[in-house]
């Protein structure tokens, strides 16, 4: 049961990367593909353990780069850079508030592509960067922000459907039990 959440998060990341490479509709309608990994990283950082956060950064980055012309491994650090600070401060974050999820999703979706581009440029690659990229960045940020609360709701639903139910408190309380023997006396 302990492995349920990491497996669910990593499976979702795997399918999300494949979906991003398969679905052409967002690119055709909005001019950019929306990346779900930063939003997923926010969820993992707030709800999962550090091993899951690290695995998501490594495996998610590897899967993304393997289907892209990116250098292999270039997406790992940006994803971790987004998730790790959130993980460290997660006790101070009101994780159940949709507004907090939206803000964190916005920040993560805005930061991750910029860091990846910086790493690519630093490695001597020549990605397509022009004024159009600002529009694409805005679409990725807005899309990622919008998706984050939806992801939280989805994982909560999955947890309810597939996880163990919480043990509800029974109505019986030993301190309120009527002691028949005493009354009889």
């Amino acid at each position, binding site marked *: 049961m302990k492995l349920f959440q990491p497996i669910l998060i990593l499976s979702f990341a795997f399918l999300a990367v494949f979906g*991003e490479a*398969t679905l052409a509709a967002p690119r055709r309608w909005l001019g950019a593909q929306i990346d779900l990994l930063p939003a997923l990283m926010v969820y993992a950082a707030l709800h999962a353990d550090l091993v899951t956060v*690290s695995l998501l950064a490594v495996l998610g980055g590897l899967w993304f780069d*393997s289907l892209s012309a*990116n250098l292999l491994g270039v997406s790992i650090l940006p994803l*971790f850079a987004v998730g790790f600070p959130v993980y460290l401060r997660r006790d101070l974050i009101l994780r159940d508030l949709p507004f907090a999820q939206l803000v964190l999703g916005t920040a993560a979706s805005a930061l991750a592509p910029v860091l990846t581009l910086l790493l690519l440029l630093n490695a001597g690659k020549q990605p397509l960067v022009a004024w159009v990229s600002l529009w*694409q960045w805005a679409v*990725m940020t807005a899309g990622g922000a919008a998706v984050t609360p939806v992801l939280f709701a989805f994982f909560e639903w999955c947890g309810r459907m597939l996880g163990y139910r919480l043990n509800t408190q029974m109505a019986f309380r030993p301190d309120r039990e009527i002691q028949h023997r005493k009354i009889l006396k």
Partner: protein
Amino acid sequence: MFKQKNYLALGAVVFVAVLLLSLPTRATGRLKVAVEAWFLPLFGLADAAQQLPADLADSVLPRRELLREIDRLRRDNQQLKEQQLQTTAIARENQQLRAELDWQQQAPWRLKLANVVLRDPANWWKTVQIDLGSRDGIQTNQPVLTAEGLVGRVASVSLINSQVALVGDPNCRVSALVENASHDMGVLIPRGPGDPLDSSLVQLSYLASTANLKPGQNVLTSGLGGIFPKGIPIGRIVESQSVEYGLATVASVKLNADLGALEQVWVLFR
């Protein structure tokens, strides 16, 4: 805030990332293929899912419509046969003239059909994956085209699929020739500013300042550079302007092939 396990996780992730980024290109390529292989089971599922609506539509198509389609295809076939006869005669004549002038003979093109299976998930590259790989004889730098025109070149090859860098990607620069009296030549590079929703525009740069460009003129591959054979249609000139204080000219080219809606492409063998 920083416990030992936090340090450990941070160190491990940074170590993995730095290790991967510092691997030699060949090792990275192999590793990329290995990681990509995880997605192989999903390729089949995606194919089936894409095929399903088409199959359903085929099964409910009325017979009258099918007969009309067959009729149209027969007419097209007849026309194509006539065109092929003419083309064969022209090719024979061309070969004879080349032999008389002692010019180099042109090797015929061989084409192999491929399906586009994936697109680059990153917005800063323009690449697609096709379902032909090294087992099908694909090699890097082979030109990729559609019936409308040039699409790109094979950038990397794995056993069962290949990555194609599309025209307009930084890894696919094409030497091009404008079909006008002066045969102006330039290089196709990614277009800078432009409509974010229109990926069909690229920039023809390094043109001479005296270039005589007009909207609508055809742009073809020039054959220089050794990757693309001469004469593959690329697109049409949309507009041109003088740059660098009148020392050079750049032009916007609208690509013939719709790169945003690629489903099947041809890989050219020479």
